[in-house]
């Protein structure tokens, strides 16, 4: 899981360069999120982890922090 976390962090750091992103930080509250980012995040997760993000997955809680994304990927993989 740590490896997955590192990959997610590396991707998010491309968008959050002004902030040192912690695992539990609410990335929506930081104010850098727009619809382009949302689309790129979905593409990244689908490509990197071989999962499909379905309609029912589009709950902001699934993508609100590095920890939340890791848990989401873990759930999808199982």
């Amino acid at each position, binding site marked *: 899981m740590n490896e997955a976390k590192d990959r997610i962090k590396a991707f998010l750091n491309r*968008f959050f*360069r002004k902030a040192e992103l912690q695992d539990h930080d609410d990335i929506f509250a930081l104010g*850098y999120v727009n619809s*382009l980012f949302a*689309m*790129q995040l979905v*593409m*990244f997760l689908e*490509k990197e982890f071989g999962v499909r993000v379905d309609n029912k997955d589009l709950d902001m809680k699934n993508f609100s922090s590095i920890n939340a994304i890791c848990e989401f990927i873990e759930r999808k993989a199982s």
Partner: protein
Amino acid sequence: MMTTVELTKRQLQWKDEFKAFTDEVVAPSAAESDKTERIAPSLIEKLKEKGYLGSMLPKEYGGMGLDWVTVGMLNEELGRGCSSIRSLLTVHGMAALAILRWGSDEQRHQWLPGLADGSLVGAFALTEREVGSDAKSVQTTAVLTEDGYVLNGRKKWITMGQIADVYLLFAQCEGKPTAFLVPSDSPGFSRTPITGMMGVRGSMLAELRLEDCVIPQQNLLGLVGIGLSHVALNCLDYGRYTVACGCVGLGQACLEQSLQYASQRKQFGAPLGDNQLIQKMLTEMAVNVKAARLLCCHAGHLREMMDPDSIMETWTAKYFASGMVNKAASDAVQIHGANGCSSDYPVERYMRDAKINEIIEGTTQMHEMLIARNMLSAT
């Protein structure tokens, strides 16, 4: 970082097939489509026979199962022959891909085989009289009732709006932009042709009217509220890619016509091409077409790899290609002189068609804002 994309043997075979189809079927009909402001049904039949209306869909649903670079080549070649035909593939594909990406299993099986074989034509209905770039402000409404969703509002400038069987249509539902599939035979639905456009005149634009238009509840696509953020942006990404590739094709057509004219037309006892100022225009045209093609190929390669950077690279390709083709078409008319201002020569149509590309799928100015903001936010 720019990747080098070398076409495979199969991709080169596809390219030859697309080129032959364009030369034999598409290009000879383009002037007529422009004049009559419609694509002849017989021409659409030929597109269906080749399977091109399913070019963007996987084989699982009856599509061609092409990779994205090859889809780009198809749109380039069709764009070289006729921008209106290319526009059909763009909007049809936008509807089809939205269903593929965000539709339920039932929706995919209901709609995709028909869209893939062309027995159904799809279109994208976002724009309204008062709403263009500011898409989140669409005024059309959708209310869930016992009978299904009831839609009210109007859509304008809808490409293929005159002939589409199903529209991917965006409306405010519970105050949030939401996507719906609206069949053209829905009660309360009507459409009025829009004629007299400057360019891409065969794209059969229509204004759609929804007056207590009722569609089944299961025609909601995705979830309430993700219409713009996920459904439309995904569609527009494909739209921008195909428009950019179409611009490369149109630029290539400008170049080919200009080379031919500059070789044959004589002034002062010598071909126009002997004039260094003409040579400058030809060189700029050739180099810019190649540059745009490489940007499109790069974006297509990234799309194929599902790389998140493909989205911004597609914006870049569309921005450059649509600007490029306007300069190319303008220079092509300039090289042709008075002949270039006459419908006896195709460059007159190319120049009118070229302009449309700077407006559709995001204006040039929206591209300039978004590309710059994206760089600034990462700095």
